[in-house]
């Protein structure tokens, strides 16, 4: 399990030959358009502050051009920031020397890419050992570890196939196995499932959640798909035009959208799968009649399902310690599921 979170502090990225020159102007409120039209520089990221929790999935969501792929590339410094810091284990990635950076990338991070970025001339097995090979690990040992992960992502039997003999979903399984074989605490996933068919995408999300429940890595997951963000994210940060416009848990965002843009975004969300029982339950009284019991972290959809299955109108809420902590009304549950929050 990963013990350290990632702190992104006051990060700015201005693309162009003299990015530093315009930092002050941008801090003083120069707009993206003005910077681009008058000075020929592109504002990539502005004043990013995100505290990514250790051992959890941090989703960064935004539409194309919002800067989310730029942001994830700052964590392993595939892109250098103009100013700012990315702190992991008390070290600022942005200040590392070349050698330290290579070491950091080899041992602390692993990345999965939208377009898979597999080595086309290598088999599935040879692709999976790539990170270990770069680390200088003995080939037999590397293959032993790689085989374990190939099996874990469901590719047993395909070890000797080349990437272009596999479907997109299978190729991304190779990408995932290659990243996991690195045994790094940080897993960076750049729109990892966006290129896949919806069914396969759901499948891969399940694979990721399953693996994450066991490994508890610090995952940074980039996506443009809100449903994916809500399903995977322990925390979500929403990016627009290079700025974080809201961050929090999925439920916080769905219940209290920060502005009209986000409110518009979450309109179509299945709220029953996002809002948890504890949000709307009443503390008292405990209902004496009903036999239905739900947990405080259960989602409304499953609570409603439990009540309707038993043809009850109320359910009691029991926490993990076995104490009854409140009760839930079916009508309230359904109201919470169908009323969209407005800004």
């Amino acid at each position, binding site marked *: 399990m990963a013990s350290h979170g990632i702190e992104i502090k006051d990060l700015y990225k201005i693309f162009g030959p003299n990015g530093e020159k315009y930092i002050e102007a941008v801090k003083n409120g120069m707009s993206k358009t003005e910077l681009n039209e008058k000075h020929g520089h592109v504002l990539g990221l502005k004043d990013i502050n995100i505290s990514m929790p250790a051992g959890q999935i941090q989703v960064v969501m935004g539409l194309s051009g919002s800067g989310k792929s730029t942001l994830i590339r700052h964590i*392993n410094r*595939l892109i250098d920031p103009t100013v700012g810091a990315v702190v992991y284990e008390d070290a600022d990635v942005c200040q590392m020397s070349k050698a330290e*950076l*290579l*070491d*950091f*990338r*080899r*041992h602390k*991070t*692993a*990345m999965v*890419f939208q*377009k898979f*970025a*597999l*080595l*086309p*001339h*290598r088999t599935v097995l040879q692709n999976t050992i*790539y*990170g270990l*090979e*770069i*680390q200088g690990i003995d080939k037999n040992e590397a293959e032993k570890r790689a085989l374990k992960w190939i099996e874990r992502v469901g590719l047993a039997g395909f070890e000797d196939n*080349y*990437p*272009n*003999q*596999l*479907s997109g979903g299978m190729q991304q399984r190779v990408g995932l196995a290659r990243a996991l074989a*690195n045994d790094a605490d940080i897993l*960076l996933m750049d729109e990892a499932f966006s290129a896949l068919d919806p069914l396969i995408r759901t499948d891969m999300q399940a694979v990721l959640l399953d693996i994450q429940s066991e490994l508890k890595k610090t995952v940074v997951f980039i996506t443009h798909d809100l449903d994916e963000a809500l399903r995977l994210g322990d925390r979500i940060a929403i990016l627009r035009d290079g700025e974080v416009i809201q961050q929090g848990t999925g439920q916080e965002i769905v219940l209290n959208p920060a502005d009209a843009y986000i409110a518009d975004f979450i309109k179509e969300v299945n709220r029953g799968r996002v809002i948890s029982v504890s949000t709307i339950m009443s503390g008292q009284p405990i209902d004496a009649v009903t036999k239905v019991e739900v947990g405080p972290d259960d989602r409304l959809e499953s609570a409603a399902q439990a009540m309707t299955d038993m043809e009850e109108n109320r359910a009691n809420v029991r926490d993990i310690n076995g104490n009854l902590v409140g009760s839930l009304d079916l009508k309230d549950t359904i109201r919470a599921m169908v009323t969209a929050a407005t800004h």
Partner: protein
Amino acid sequence: MNWLTEFPEMSRTDLRDLKKGGDEAFKAFSRAYGEALENFFFPLLKFLKWFEDLLVATPWPIMMIIIALLVWAGSRSLPMVAGTVISMLLIGYLGMWEDTMFTLALISVATLICIVVGIPFGILMSKSDRTQAVVTPILDIMQTIPPFVYLIPILLLLGIGRVPGLIAVIIFAIPPVVRLTNLGIRLVDKDVLEAADSFGASPWQKMRTVQLPLALPNIFAGVNQTIMMALSMVVTASLIGVTGLGQEVLVALNNQYLSLGFMNGLAIVAIAIVFDRVSQKYGKRLQKHSEVVHG
């Protein structure tokens, strides 16, 4: 209005002095360093002679078996092996075996040197736009300047013989392998390079595990072109003392021996076709992974 109808030329004496000055300067350079250069290239001469002697001294049936095996190793194609053996038998029967061995030795050594020198140059070129900007025009000159022009200084420096011929062949034949190594490395998919970066690959690890393997088809096309150009130079090189099929063509040209010219010329063509097809097939086999596409 004299200057309108007649080009304002340099005066005759000045022009003569200019040419003479250039010639004298080069001759002085040649006198001073010619021997040092000859000594420098002596190992090359020894290697080339050793290789020629080896090819000529090896009994022809053994040579034939070796050639057949090499063609098989490269192409994995029986028709190609058969075609090669038949044309080599015909070449031998028509009395050109020994000359063919000389030419084979020259081409092999020239190609080897082109690869050993050219690929590292191509790699350097791919690493820096500035190097590319400097090297590209030099390659352009090497490919367009008439070979006779650089035969003169080579002749002045090293005299007549195998090494000057070899150097002339290399100057003419090396540009494709340099160019295509550079191009191949530059064309490597940026996404895959980024993936290698994300795993902490050092520049050398990236070159070894990603760039060179993925540039291989292009590098191979370059080697193939280099071989073809080396072969097309054997007649010109024979002007400064390279023995082999090219020299016979030269003799035929000087004496208007039609049949001799055609026979030796066609022998060169036969070797060229064998080299070309075998190296292409080999290059394709290296790309096995790109053949089967998921459907």
